[in-house]
Structures are given as C-alpha cells and as structure tokens.
C-alpha cells in the first residue's frame, strides 16, 4: 500500500513537472521526430525518411549569402475584367460553393465579386474581396448573404451593375460601384 502510494506520488510529481515545463513557451517548432510510443509503422517509416533527408541537407554545401542581390525582373500578370467563369476562390470550400466571379478595378484596388451559396445551407451569397493594385495589401472578404435566393450566378454586368440569377431563374441586382 505504502509502495503504491509512493509510486503514484512520484508519477504525480513528474506530471506536474512536465506541465510546468510545457507552460514555458518557446516559439521554435517541435521537431517532427517527437512521437509517442504508439506511432504506427507508417509514421515511423516517414519519420525515418524525413530524418534521412535532414541529414543529407545538413551535409550539403553552403552558398555565400548575397543580401544585396537584385531579383530578375519580369512582367506581372494582367487581371481579367468582367465576368470570369470559374468557381475557384481564395475561400474555404467547406463553407462556400462558388459559381463564378466578376472582377473590376476601382481606383487603386482590384475588386473581385464572388457569387454562389453557403455550402451547408444553400443560401445564396455574394462575397467581395479587394486587393491593392500592387498586390501588397488585401482586405478581409465581406460576405453578403442573400436570403431566399439559393445558389447564385453572375449573368450580366453593365458597368459595375451586376445581375445575378438563381437556379430557379429569379434575378437580383448587386451594385459593385458602391464598394
């Protein structure tokens, strides 16, 4: 009985000690080799492969640093304007089902208007994202739920006045110039 209590007390002390160590935060990533004893064969195999790669990289020759080097310049891509028939968007697919988009340039901003629906509810949605012309800053998306519309598609653009059509043929308007 006394031995059992002593063992449990030691384990308790060890747990508290480790918790205290864990509370001391560091910003360095934990090595991927820090696994538990119940890792499967595949985890061990992949860890070994990563370790082999790390050893190989550690032995590679080192180039001199060139902090004043200038990059090779190249032209930037031109953004498309108008309706773009793609559902690809920098938005989580688990949340949004995007049908297509409209793009325009307003002043010093690229503006993208995405149409579609909420993935789970099917509620129609319009999402607006802006990015500076130089690409260095981007605003958080603004989400406009369109109640009682269902999935939307941008079907016409007259200047920045957009027409969106529902799957049942209904139409709603969206004024991109007010953004």
């Amino acid at each position, binding site marked *: 009985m006394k031995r059992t209590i002593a063992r449990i007390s030691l384990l308790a002390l060890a747990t508290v000690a480790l918790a205290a160590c864990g509370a001391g935060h*560091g910003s360095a*990533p934990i090595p991927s080799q820090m696994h538990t004893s*119940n890792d499967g064969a595949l985890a061990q195999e992949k*860890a070994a492969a990563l370790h082999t790669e790390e050893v190989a990289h550690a032995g590679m020759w080192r180039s001199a640093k060139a902090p004043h080097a200038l990059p090779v310049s190249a032209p930037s891509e031109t953004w498309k304007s108008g309706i773009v028939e793609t559902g690809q968007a920098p938005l989580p*697919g*688990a*949340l949004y089902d995007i049908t297509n988009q409209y793009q325009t340039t307003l002043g010093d901003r690229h503006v*993208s208007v995405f149409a579609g629906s909420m993935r789970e509810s099917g509620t129609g949605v319009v999402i607006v994202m802006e990015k500076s012309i130089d690409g260095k800053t981007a605003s958080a*998306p603004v989400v406009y739920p369109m109640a009682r519309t269902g999935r939307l598609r941008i079907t016409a653009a007259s200047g920045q006045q957009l027409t969106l059509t529902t799957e049942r043929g209904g139409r709603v308007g969206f004024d991109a110039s007010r953004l």
Partner: protein
Amino acid sequence: MVRLLRALALAFPAALMATALAHAAPAATTSRYMSTTNTTTLYNEGCSMGSAAQSGVVILDFGEPWYSGGYGTILYGANSFASIASIQAGAQSFLDGFWNCSPSTPVLRLAVGTSNYGSQVTSGHGTAWGNLVAALNSYISTKGYGSQEYARGANDMELSWNSYATTKAWVDAYNAATTLPLYDYGDAGGCPPYGSCNNGWTQADLYDVSWGAKDSYPFPEIYTTNGSQASEWYNESLFSALNEPAGKMGILGTMTQYAACGCGSSTNTPAQGFDQLQNDLNGDSRTAYAMSYSTDITYAN
C-alpha cells in the same frame, strides 16, 4: 481505496503522455494565395521571411490545375494561366530571397501548392507537379541552399471540390514522380462527427490521400472557431488509429486563414487553430501526436 489508487495509477501515464506532447503553438509563417508568378514579388516575399529569421512551412497556393499547351494553374485574382515553368521560376526566386536575406539558422520548407478543384485534376498534372517539386529540390542543392531550404509539394484537397477517384489519381501520379513530401492542406468536410463525409468520400479515402500515400502528410485547414474542423481531423486521426494497419496518421501542422478571411465563424487565429487540433489529438491517447508547424494564409502578394 486500493481500487481508487489503481485507477489513478492507470490515469497518470496517459496524462503524462498528453502533458509531454503539450506545447505552445509555433510561430505562424505566412502562406499565400498567389495572383502572380512575378519573380521580383516572390523574391521580396522570400527575403521578407528570411530577414525576419522565420522558420517553418510556407505554402504558395498557385491555384487550380490547368492545361494550356502544357501543365500549369489558374492563378487567383488574375485568373490567368501560369505555366509550370513560370511557377518554378517564381518559387526559385522565393528561395533566392530567403537564402540571401536570412541569417544562417532559420529553415524554410517551401511548398508549391495547387488544389483538387476543377476539371483539370489529372494524373498528367500530378506528374508535372511532382517533377516541379523535384526540380526545385535540385535547384536548392545546386545553389547551395540545402542547409536551410527544402522543397515540398502541396494540394488543397477539399472533399466537395472533386471525387476521391480523381483526387487519388493526381496523388498517385505525384507519388510516382517524386519522393518529396506532399502536404494536404485541405479539409475533412462533412466527415465524422458531423456526417459520413461530403461528396461520396469516406474516412478511408481521406486517409489514403492525406497520409496513406507514401509522400502525403496532413496539414489541414483549421479555420472554424467552433472547433468543428479540428473535431473532424481528430476523428480522422482516430479512424486511422483504429482501422488502418499502418497505424495513426501524423498530422504535421495547421493552416488558418486569419489574414485572408473575416468570414464570421472561420476566423481562428493561427494559435487558436493549432491549439484546437493539438488539444483534440492529445485528449485521446490513441491520437496523441505533437504537431510541428503553423501557417496562416493571406490573399496579399
């Protein structure tokens, strides 16, 4: 009293393991939705990270697979075709910038990313992507960057975007082209505990592309503040621990979208996203695993 003591004696090792694996979220790197392959822009992005002496995984998401006279992607925003050659040149510039501007210690794992979105997710594209990553690896070696840089592939594999069969064909082709890791920074949409997975996928299918394939590593998006995505991936890890002969999956890290998205409930900070999943994994001895990386994706280039 003896029974109580025995129960405590059994509980402590599990607590000990979870405590040993508990650690603060690593500092998050900046990943990017790419609207450009401009070498100056990418050099400056790499230099910025190097100057800050940051280590970790950076995923440059170049958009959905595409074919236009050759393989490539459709960039975000610009919605223009970017060839594999232009993506390679841009990524190499990022590697140059990081090397030239960094001190001798930080380590970059640069992952060139695409997705399983759209009609051009093919085995040919998977092969091309694997060859791209292999070419970047050769560049790192030739240029003498290897002590601080690694090349990786990445795919935002979202269950709603395409079928398991189509996605698997891409992954298999990538695996045949290279041995370099492939990060899955996608989702487990609709999977347990919320359902039986979206779009005809199963947990076994998701395991297959995100971990079972020889090069694959899960690096999931953990956006939702209500913990739903963390719960899905905990359940995926549990599935692997209980059902897969090769054992539980090793989740490398988490991606959040805090810088890019003020989408209501999908705005975990990097630390929140990491901690959610880490706590879920460590709360069960069958899934306990110490993740290594955190990255947050932005729309800015």
